[in-house]
């Protein structure tokens, strides 16, 4: 579709020159001023460099994480010299006749492996606890490009967890300093109260003297966060993402478009997020009312199940498109239903009707679950 748009654009303005770029031996014509990363996204597929900090919806983002490094083997037609070092493709604009190597360049793959190792230096290995696990960009990145072990032997940087506002939990330990949330707060909300304090190894995302963030759109920092540093307190520890069923839903909202994804267990809404595209970027930012307060299924009109890549763990157990055979026992037995020897919901203590997790504001605690036989 992007190609078609590009072609019609060309016929309209013939005098506007398009730049021819060759990325991994695939030629694409793009407008001047396009970055290499966006040119690669026009091609799509495996040649798209991964990006942890670049976010197409946020101005000024990119250039921090270095995962999108590519090799420019030919600068342009006018100056065919290669660029001396690997460049960050999200911040480097294309030139006419440029030749770029991403997955075809062993140098790039090796450098990316190093970048992933650096990103994971201080990142805690608490994926079993982290709510982002399963939809974490860093998890995907390290799975695809990283090495299985770390060589780091020193003490990792740790911070205390803080609640910024009622609904957002900040785990600074997990942060990779991509600055996406700072750009989001700066560009989406009219009053930014959080930013980066300190420098280098000591830098951290924080607010002015633990100011709570109360703005209608501040919840979007949760969605833009590529790791589990900023998480939704209303969905904290409620369930793992791969046990929830994502559906596209819409609601009448005066503040935002109301287009969101509901993460359901049965009819309970455990979490509301914005819709993300294939690069993990939010399509339309949603407001905090939709995200944190609309946890009643009556508020939403469900549009249909969300399409999840079958390579994602979230698609596990979601048997999409399975044809259920008709139940024939009732027909054969003159309309009598088969006698169930045990209904699991009568016995199971998981998902008890008395404990409504979606109604609990914040994570569940020991007092939310009745004890059974003296054991929690």
């Amino acid at each position, binding site marked *: 579709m992007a190609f078609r748009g590009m072609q019609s654009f060309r016929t309209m303005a013939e005098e506007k020159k398009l730049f021819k770029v060759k990325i991994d031996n695939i030629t694409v014509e793009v407008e001047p001023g396009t970055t290499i990363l966006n040119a690669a996204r026009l091609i799509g597929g495996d040649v798209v460099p991964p990006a942890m900090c670049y976010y197409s919806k946020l101005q000024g983002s990119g250039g921090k994480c270095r995962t999108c490094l590519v090799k420019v083997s030919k600068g342009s037609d006018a100056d065919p010299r290669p660029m001396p070092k690997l460049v960050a493709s999200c911040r480097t604009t294309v030139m006419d006749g440029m030749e770029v190597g991403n997955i075809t360049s062993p140098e790039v793959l090796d450098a990316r492996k190093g970048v992933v190792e650096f990103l994971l230096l201080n990142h805690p290995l608490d994926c*079993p606890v982290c709510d982002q696990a399963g939809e974490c960009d860093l998890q995907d990145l390290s799975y695809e490009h990283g090495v299985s072990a770390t060589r780091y032997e020193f003490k990792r940087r740790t911070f205390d967890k803080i609640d910024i506002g009622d609904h957002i939990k900040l785990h600074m330990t997990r942060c990779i300093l991509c600055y996406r949330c700072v750009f989001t707060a700066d560009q989406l909300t009219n009053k930014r109260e959080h930013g980066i304090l300190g420098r280098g190894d000591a830098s951290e995302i924080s607010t002015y003297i633990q100011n709570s963030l109360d703005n209608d759109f501040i919840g979007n920092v949760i969605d833009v966060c590529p790791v589990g540093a900023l998480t939704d307190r209303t969905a904290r520890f409620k369930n793992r993402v791969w046990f929830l069923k994502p559906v596209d839903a819409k609601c009448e909202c005066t503040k935002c478009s109301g287009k969101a994804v509901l993460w359901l267990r049965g009819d309970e809404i455990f979490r509301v997020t914005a819709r993300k595209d294939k690069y993990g970027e939010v399509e339309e930012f949603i407001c905090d009312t939709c995200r944190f307060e609309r946890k009643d299924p009556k508020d939403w009109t469900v549009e249909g199940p969300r399409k999840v890549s079958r390579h994602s763990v979230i698609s596990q*157990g979601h048997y999409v498109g399975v044809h259920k055979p008709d139940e024939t026992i009732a027909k054969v037995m003159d309309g009598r239903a088969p006698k169930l020897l045990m209904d699991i919901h009568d016995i199971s203590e998981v*998902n008890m009707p008395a404990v409504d997790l979606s109604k609990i504001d914040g994570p569940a605690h020991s007092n939310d679950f009745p004890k059974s036989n003296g054991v*929690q």
Partner: protein
Amino acid sequence: MQTLTNRAQPVDRRPMTFWEKMYLPAIAKGMGITFKHIFKKKATISYPEEKRPFSPVFRGLHVLNRDEEGRERCTACGLCAVACPAEAITMEAAERKTGEENLYREEKYAARYEINMLRCIFCGFCEEACPKEAIYMTETFAPSNFQRKGFIYGKDDLLIPDPKHPLTVTKKD
């Protein structure tokens, strides 16, 4: 018809002789075989007084482990449940409160943990998937029960007793 092997024997259809009609030699031969088995080693054991040893890799009933300080290791990460091919494992997580650090190892723990032993196929994937060394399969098997509901094992059935604070748990019937 062409035979598949050359081991086929033609059936002897001659009428039985007088000796064969008496059946006595055949009976004696059969009794001889029976008598011989009295002196052979018995193939059975008298369970439950006697029990056979399990192989060290036997995959039996699950337990939820505790660490050296008696804290629950399970952090409700859900990897056992996602690995389970029979979808037998379910859980609900909760956040550890301050003051509960002696009970739970991580800030998140399984408030509810259930294995449906009727669904479980004892493949051991849960044990392999566990990143916290919390679930283990023991060298026992699930005891029989009169009712199906007795096979839904909760945390009270699975969790090993705390060595420091022995629980006084009354078993469900």
